């Protein structure tokens, strides 16, 4: 037994602990513990009242036994009694026992609360701290109910000791997390913010934690903290390292506080106030500069603390995503770390770069590190670092490097750790689909995937390749040929047999012309795998066989023989047997026509979110998947590879709840004989600049619109006015996206209203078409109107100084980002009118010192757009620069018609 050198050891406890340590077996240990428990129980129950010291010692022994992993069902009362002792050590043990052992729904909680209350009222800072620690450790609802009102006043009271303030701040933070409804906001919140100015850095640190949590929940209430946090941060980063005395950690000034302040600032967008903003930028630059300075100490603690602040600063830069120079500097800094000899730094650099990759300012800069990252995949010894490298490759992938990245990931897959194979398979499958320019590459990639890591290819992945092959007829022949060749491998994975069976069953005819892949050869090849496969695959193959009978009448007899064999017709598995029996009968009795109808090629699959992407999201948990959304890509962002109907993808139109007949009724009613009508777009262009007015009018019907837009959302009120004196019957209207009905009857002279809700998901060129049908008299009327939903409606005005504007303008200098159009004025050239139009369209003016230039800037759904409109004699030159080519094009078309 070692001698206890400090404080008040408890000899009995030390003896007991060393007894336990000397136990040779688990059984001996349990025996010793049971003996001790019996001893303590008898002491607690004994007639003789125990003195404080003994009580403390026994409670401590119970605690030790509990921490060894044994259950304790008594002693709680004695621990609670210790709370009321005036001896500090006894109180302390009582609180420790309660913090560790008492769960929140204990009956003792009232007694405990009573003890806490006394200590809080004691004005003795040591006792108050113990009580506050206990509340923070237990944090139960009952405690929140009892103390949530009291703690804020302790926190902001002028005469509270610093250490108590710290405990109170964190205690309040804990209660706010567990029972936010019980912690009242109030006058104290404003005073808490001012703790950021406190002299004592420990108080500031604790207060910053509290404010950050509160600000995440109600950012508006704590806006004032931004300027205080920036000021504090600025003082820390510019201080000499000795200024902060003991808050300097291995030559780094207050790293914990710096990180907390940077974290607090991440609850908010960049400060609006220019001076504050530049002060913050200065701080961030200083932190980045310090990273380049030689280290002040060789100790790892120095570099860890310094880099902790640096990484947090980079997080803030990424969060703001507004200062291109800082973003690029951050990216370069991380690039250095990618080759650092510290594994931890390489790991973190890979991780932060993942988020940088999704910023449009730094995506290109991240891409320059591709070779280093690929190298990391090959050479890192630590699997968690390799995993981060895979994540980063996934995040930095775009059309320009997809082939390289997919190839590297595939080759890594052959040796990858089992624990991460499935995730890599999903990622490869997603990238291959998303960036496939030609689908033969896609098919090759997926088949390779099955070859390399068949066991890790989940159903979603091979379903998806089949969906895509079925939906794209240009790749079907190639797919059939490729799977046919792949099936020749001596040992091919069952997933390949599934894909092969399905694709040859559908499209085997496309390669049947070649004698090397004649129907019979195809069939024998598939059937040679049959006996090696599991029941579900066999069932799929049987379906492929019956499809063969339809495709190739010449192999009908062979296949019928197979189906007729005992191993099929009398198969023990009921599903297989049923298929064999039914397919055999079908092939015998049905005529070729019926067979052809029943076994027709599968119709295209309706498009929806890729099932593999959904799976990866599930696997990684929400928000963890690096954003590889098309939205962020500016250069290669066109979507021609997407075989979805482009429109549904782009606009989600949700109609308000319908009251009229549903679409199904429409389909079967006589009105379904609708003829296609020309889409009216007479008034379409007039709506580029305005939101309200009449969009369509004929002798019978007038359609008016009122629309409002906010950011990426819009709402259109459509008014249908009956100009006649007769009823319109069976009135229905639907969009080419979403079926939607209004009141089926419009009385003569009456008006009905319909509300359309619109969300702009990505940039688009086509406008939605509203189809209207009704009966007037005996005749069916069909009207189609193009709704004026245009890209520029989703503009957000952006205030910019001239300097910012021209800086941004220069950044958008890539040739595909600029579109220019010179055209003759259609309307008289009036400066004021033009200015007003620019204001409506582009929201801001007055940046350019040349009065002949009209300049505006706006953001569409997170994307920036600027236009300059300088007038010449009778001509306009319109120059647009946006971050995406398609946006520039479309805006130019829309705006060019307006002057």
């Amino acid at each position, binding site marked *: *037994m*070692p001698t*206890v050198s*400090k*404080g*008040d*050891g*408890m*000899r*009995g406890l030390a*003896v007991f*602990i*060393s007894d336990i340590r000397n136990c040779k077996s688990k059984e001996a240990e349990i025996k010793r513990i049971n003996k001790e428990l019996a001893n303590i129980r008898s002491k607690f129950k004994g007639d003789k009242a125990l003195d404080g*010291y003994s009580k403390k010692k026994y409670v401590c022994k119970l*605690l030790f036994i509990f*921490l060894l*992993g044994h259950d304790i069902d008594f002693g709680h009362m004695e621990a609670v009694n210790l709370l009321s002792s005036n001896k*500090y*050590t006894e109180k*302390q*043990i009582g609180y420790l026992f309660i913090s560790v052992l008492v769960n*929140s729904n204990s009956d003792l909680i009232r007694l405990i609360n009573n003890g806490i209350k006394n200590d809080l009222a004691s004005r003795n800072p*040591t006792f108050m701290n113990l009580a506050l620690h206990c509340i*923070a450790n237990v*944090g*139960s609802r009952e405690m929140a109910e009892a103390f949530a009102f009291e703690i804020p006043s302790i926190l902001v009271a002028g005469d509270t000791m610093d*250490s108590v303030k*710290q*405990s109170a701040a*964190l205690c309040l*933070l*804990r209660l706010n*997390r567990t029972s936010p409804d019980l912690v009242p906001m109030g006058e104290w919140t404003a005073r808490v913010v001012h703790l950021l100015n406190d002299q004592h*850095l*420990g108080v500031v*640190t*604790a207060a910053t*934690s509290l404010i950050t949590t509160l600000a995440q929940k109600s950012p508006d209430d704590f806006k004032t903290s931004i300027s205080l946090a920036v000021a504090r941060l600025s003082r820390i980063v510019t201080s000499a390292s000795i200024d902060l005395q*003991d*808050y300097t*950690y291995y030559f780094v000034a*207050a*790293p*914990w*506080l710096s990180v907390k302040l940077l974290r607090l600032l991440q609850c908010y967008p960049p400060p609006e106030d220019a001076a504050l903003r530049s002060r913050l930028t200065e701080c961030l630059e200083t932190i980045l500069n310090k990273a380049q300075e030689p280290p002040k100490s060789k100790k790892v603690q120095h570099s*860890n*603390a310094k880099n*902790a602040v640096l*990484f*947090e600063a980079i997080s803030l830069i990424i969060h703001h995503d507004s200062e291109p120079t800082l973003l690029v500097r951050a990216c370069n800094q991380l690039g250095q770390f990618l080759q650092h000899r510290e*594994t*931890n730094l*390489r*790991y*973190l650099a890979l991780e932060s770069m993942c988020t940088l990759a999704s910023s449009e300012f730094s995506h290109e800069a991240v891409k320059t590190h591709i070779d280093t990252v690929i190298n990391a995949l090959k050479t890192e*010894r*630590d699997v*968690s670092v390799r*995993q981060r490298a895979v994540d980063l490759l996934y995040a930095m992938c775009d059309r320009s490097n997809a082939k390289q990245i997919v190839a590297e990931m595939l080759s890594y897959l052959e040796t990858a750790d089992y624990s991460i194979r499935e995730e890599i398979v999903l990622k490869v499958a997603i990238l291959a689909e998303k960036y496939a320019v030609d689908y033969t590459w896609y098919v090759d990639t997926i088949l390779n995937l099955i070859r390399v890591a068949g066991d890790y290819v989940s159903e979603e992945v091979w379903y998806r390749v089949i969906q895509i092959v079925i939906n794209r007829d240009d790749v079907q022949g190639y797919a059939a040929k490729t799977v046919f060749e792949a099936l020749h491998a001596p040992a091919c994975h069952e997933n390949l047999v599934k894909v092969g069976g399905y694709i040859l069953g559908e499209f085997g005819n496309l390669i049947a012309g070649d004698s090397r892949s004649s129907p019979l050869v195809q069939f024998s090849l598939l059937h040679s795998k049959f006996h090696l496969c599991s029941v579900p695959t066999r069932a799929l193959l049987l379906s492929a066989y019956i499809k063969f009978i339809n495709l190739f009448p010449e192999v009908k007899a062979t296949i019928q023989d197979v189906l007729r064999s005992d191993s099929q017709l009398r198969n023990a598995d009921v599903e297989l047997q049923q298929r064999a029996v039914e397919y055999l009968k079908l092939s015998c009795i049905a005529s070729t026509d019926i067979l052809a109808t029943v076994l027709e090629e599968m119709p295209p699959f309706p498009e929806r979110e890729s099932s593999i992407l959904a799976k990866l999201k599930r696997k990684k*948990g929400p928000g963890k998947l690096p954003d590889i959304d098309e939205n962020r890509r500016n250069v290669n962002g066109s979507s021609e590879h997407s075989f979805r109907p482009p429109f549904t993808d782009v606009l989600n139109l949700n109609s308000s709840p319908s009251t009229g007949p549903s679409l199904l009724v429409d389909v079967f009613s006589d009105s379904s004989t609708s003829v296609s009508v020309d889409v009216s777009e007479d008034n379409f262009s007039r709506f580029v600049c305005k939101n309200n007015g009449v969009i369509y009018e004929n002798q019978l019907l007038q359609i008016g619109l009122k629309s409002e837009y906010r950011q990426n959302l819009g709402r259109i009120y459509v008014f249908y006015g009956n100009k006649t004196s007769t009823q319109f019957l069976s009135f229905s209207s639907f969009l080419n996206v979403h079926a939607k009905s209004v009141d089926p009857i419009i009385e003569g002279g009456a008006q009905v209203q319909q509300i359309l809700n619109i969300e702009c998901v990505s940039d688009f060129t086509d406008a939605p078409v509203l189809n209207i049908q009704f009966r007037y008299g005996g005749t069916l009327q069909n009207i189609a109107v193009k709704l004026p939903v245009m890209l520029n409606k989703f503009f957000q005005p952006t205030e910019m100084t001239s300097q910012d504007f021209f800086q941004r303008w220069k950044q958008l200098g890539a040739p595909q980002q600029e579109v220019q159009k010179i055209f003759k004025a259609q309307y008289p050239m009036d400066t004021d009118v033009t200015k007003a139009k620019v204001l409506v369209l582009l929201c801001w003016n007055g940046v350019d010192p040349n009065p002949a230039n009209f300049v505006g800037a706006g953001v569409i759904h997170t994307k920036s757009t600027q236009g300059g409109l300088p007038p010449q004699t009778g001509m306009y030159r319109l120059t647009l620069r946006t971050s995406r080519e398609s946006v520039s094009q479309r805006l130019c078309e829309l705006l060019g018609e307006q002057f």
Partner: protein
Amino acid sequence: MMRFLLLFSRQGKLRLQKWFTPIPEREKKKIIREMTTMVLARQPRSCNFLHWKDLKIIYKRYASLYFCLAIENHENELLALEVIHRYVELLDKYFGNVCELDIIFNFEKAYFILDEFLLGGEIQETSKQIVNRCIESSDMLQETMEEYMSKPAF
């Protein structure tokens, strides 16, 4: 915030557990098992960070003891490593060249020191001097060595 801190030996024996959020006992035992197997299986010279469920696990070995700290996803890994180091420094200062046995025999002290340093899953006081002063002043409130030696040894 920090979610839990575990100290265990190379043999996987738990020496200290601190939970900053309420977790049922069964669940705690499961987590302890998972952490010890996961961390002990790591190769030397690997990085000190792991992803586990929605948390980050930061671990570091000091002599025969592993310190394993779970933090939320957005928290700073490098600083978490320094939280561990600062705790080790505090123990070291208090016990004078701390070893595993000190923590076994004076486990309650290890908890007290931790409570002065971390609270409710956040850092409370980063200054080594202040924490040490706190602990020492509370020791002053305690008995002297003579009193200790006169106590019964059972």
